[in-house]
């Protein structure tokens, strides 16, 4: 296993992705790394930043303590006459009505919910908890788990991974250089075609010759060469004129744009294996609101659901080879606070959507919300360690069996939510 990693690091340092070299390197990777090639699949990790209140995503309306603890923000039990009530899932849990646009995926068996996901000795700092989850370990010194996946496998693709946003998320940081792109439509150097080619050639020259013996130069060289390779890879894609398929309509603003451009990259056949997309704004300390139309949390959930719905509609049958994991750094306090909001908590709801998801089910046991069952009388305990979800994805979807490397010091017990697993 170390050999594969070492070879790949050598490839990256040698300039994988440079247009001038890509054909010969592709040949090398194909002949030298054939054992790890798997069918083209794409994992999309949607991170809800700010700590999404999972109790109002997968609503435990059958748990009486839920209503005792949340006098103004609880979601009412399912009632077809009440548009603010939960959408029934299994007679105990219901979906927040703001997620109505993705209910059909639960009904047709492609959406699974995990209502109590977290990890031991959790942090209630946004930054730390995001960092731990994205690192695959409760540590500050590790690369991102998705980057370790890229480093420990290889595929002869032009663009294996992309982080949508202004900067690269921790999950994709590490030894393999990955691009962050905020908008594919403007991801091209300025000028007309000949000016563009002229500037790209100049940039390629000056990035390539950054010396290694001074601070930041090696990183500048590797990132610069990746940038030029990715600009070349997406040069033929017109993100300004993209007609989504099947009448899909993406929500406006960055979340919808990032999902749409993920779909566009998938369809472009560049071999996109991993994309990360962020949606912020979940830190609902005050005025969170319940199920009513126009309330703050509902508005956020509607944006999430309309984006996921558009993405799955646009991709159609391609969703058989696409897996979306929706995660967040922590849930929120079970009891609502004096400002009709919730504070930083522990376990929260995660979601999995895709053709290979054994959906229409809720995974993990339910701790129940009686005070005695809560951590410190305040926080929802987890019943699924997030690493079991990620590791299931790595082994069952990405075809990476090196779980010990991806999730160090962790004893993996699969969460069997993918159809192909035994």
């Amino acid at each position: 296993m170390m050999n594969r990693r070492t070879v790949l690091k050598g490839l990256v340092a040698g300039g994988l992705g440079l247009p001038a070299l890509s054909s010969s390197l592709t040949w090398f990777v194909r002949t030298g790394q054939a054992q790890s090639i798997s069918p083209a699949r794409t994992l999309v990790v949607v991170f809800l930043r700010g700590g999404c209140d999972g109790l109002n995503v997968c609503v435990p309306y059958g748990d009486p303590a839920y209503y005792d603890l949340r006098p103004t923000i609880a979601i009412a039990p399912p009632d077809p006459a009440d548009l603010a009530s939960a959408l029934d899932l299994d007679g105990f849990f219901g979906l927040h009505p703001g997620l109505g646009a993705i209910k059909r995926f639960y009904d047709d068996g492609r959406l699974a919910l995990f209502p109590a996901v977290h990890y031991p000795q959790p942090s209630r700092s946004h930054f730390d908890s995001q960092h731990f989850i994205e690192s695959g370990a409760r540590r500050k010194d590790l690369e991102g788990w998705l980057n370790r996946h890229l480093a420990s496998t290889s595929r002869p693709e032009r663009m294996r991974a992309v982080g949508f946003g202004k900067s690269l998320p921790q999950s994709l940081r590490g030894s393999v250089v990955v691009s962050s792109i905020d908008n594919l439509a403007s991801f091209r150097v300025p000028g007309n075609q000949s000016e563009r080619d002229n500037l790209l050639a100049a940039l390629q020259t000056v990035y390539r010759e950054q010396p290694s013996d001074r601070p930041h130069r090696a990183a500048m060289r590797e990132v610069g060469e990746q940038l030029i390779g990715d600009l070349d890879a997406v040069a033929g894609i017109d993100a300004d004129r993209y007609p989504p398929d099947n009448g899909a309509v993406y929500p406006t603003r960055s979340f919808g744009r990032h999902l749409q451009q993920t779909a566009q990259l998938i369809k472009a056949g560049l071999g996109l294996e991993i994309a990360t997309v962020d949606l912020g704004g979940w830190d609902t300390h005050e005025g969170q609101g319940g199920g009513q139309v126009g309330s703050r949390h509902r508005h956020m959930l509607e944006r999430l659901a309309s984006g996921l719905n558009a993405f799955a509609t646009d991709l159609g049958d391609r969703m058989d080879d696409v897996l979306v994991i929706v995660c967040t750094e922590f849930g929120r306090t079970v009891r609502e606070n004096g400002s009709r909001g919730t504070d930083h908590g522990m376990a929260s709801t995660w979601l999995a959507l895709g053709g290979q998801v054994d959906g229409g089910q809720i995974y993990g046991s339910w701790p129940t919300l009686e005070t005695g069952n809560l951590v410190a009388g305040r926080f929802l305990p987890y019943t699924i360690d997030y690493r079991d979800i990620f590791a299931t994805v790595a082994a069952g979807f990405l075809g990476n069996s090196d779980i010990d490397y991806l999730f160090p010091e962790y004893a993996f017990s699969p969460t069997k939510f993918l159809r192909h697993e035994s």
Partner: protein
Amino acid sequence: MSDDPSPDLVSSTAEVFMNPGDGSRPGEITPVLKRIFRSAEFWAAANRRAKIKTPLEFVLGAARAFHITPDGHELTRVMHRLGMDFLEFPVPTGYPEVGGHWINTNSLFERVRAAHDLAHADSPDGLSADPRAFALAHDRVTAEGITELFLAITHGGEYTEDEFRAALSQFGPNRPFDIDLLPDADEQVRRVLAAVLGFPGNQYQ
């Protein structure tokens, strides 16, 4: 001076902060800066241009060096795209001062775009740059002379032959450059400045 200063310098500077010993009161910044500026590390060759410019330093550095007339709205728009909102302070610790945060493809790409926008700014009542006039003011009229001037300013005087040729190539091939006679001389000089500002060598402090 560096993203990774020596622990000795950090602790001795912290000591000066607590006990200046030069008549200053504890907590004053002047003796702290003196301690840093007088240290051997500050002047060491290894610590020259060892940090990455933040977007603020990138934008204002270009504006000051090339006499680009600022326009508040335009500058804040450019900085927003570069990932650093002007006068904002993201909780909890503000914008990173360390290079690792700013070296990613999106950030480098946006600097190439921002370099183009800065060099081509020509709004009469807003952000504007006139690199041709700037070159003339420095008595630079040839392609080589202008390239040399722009690189010397942006690359701290330490550019390579390849960097020089890469910048020079932005003038376009196959004809002698004449800053007075060529109808697109203004555009050519802007192109060279845009390229040089977007080069990695201009990202080091």
